[in-house]
């Protein structure tokens, strides 16, 4: 499922709302989530999971084309941990 398919599904379900509002809502939810982590604030969605920042230490990388050394600064990367309900529903297959 892509973002536009997610928008289509929710548009069908919320026929009392203008489709443009449903589309904007989906984009705004994602944008607020990115902004939250960008401000160092974790995200906790009960039944779905949590997003937090994981630290990556500075390191010397290499340009794969030239083999040249590149200093890479310390950084943070987004990390997702699935919540209990999502974990159980996804594992429920045979």
């Amino acid at each position: 499922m892509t973002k536009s398919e997610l928008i289509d599904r929710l548009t069908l379900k919320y026929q009392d709302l203008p489709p443009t509002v449903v589309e904007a809502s989906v984009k705004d939810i994602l944008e607020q989530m990115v902004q939250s982590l960008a401000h160092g604030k974790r995200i906790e969605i009960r039944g779905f999971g949590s997003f937090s920042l994981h630290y990556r230490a500075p390191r010397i990388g290499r340009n794969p084309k030239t083999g040249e050394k590149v200093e890479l600064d310390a950084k943070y990367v987004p990390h997702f941990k699935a919540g209990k309900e999502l974990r159980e529903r996804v594992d429920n297959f045979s």
Partner: protein
Amino acid sequence: MALTKAELAEMLFEKHGINKQDAKTLVEDFFEEIRSVLEAGDQVKLSGFGNFELRTKSQRPGRNPKTGEDIPIKARRVVTFKPGQKFKSRVENAKPED
């Protein structure tokens, strides 16, 4: 304080004038649609944000750390999230709270 569903619903109410009941269920359904697609075994690709993917892990030997007893860890299916380039570049210089 972490970002929660309540805060997302409040944003939809303030920004789009969606009534509080609809805003609350729309946020809930946003996550429920993603869960049900993953539950059905498909991946979810949200451009600008990232992809939720499924990985099947085969059975492996495990151990009860308290008793030292050998217990196999059963085969299972798990969700992984791969953040997109845009998401990664926007958080790399963040300062985590607390």
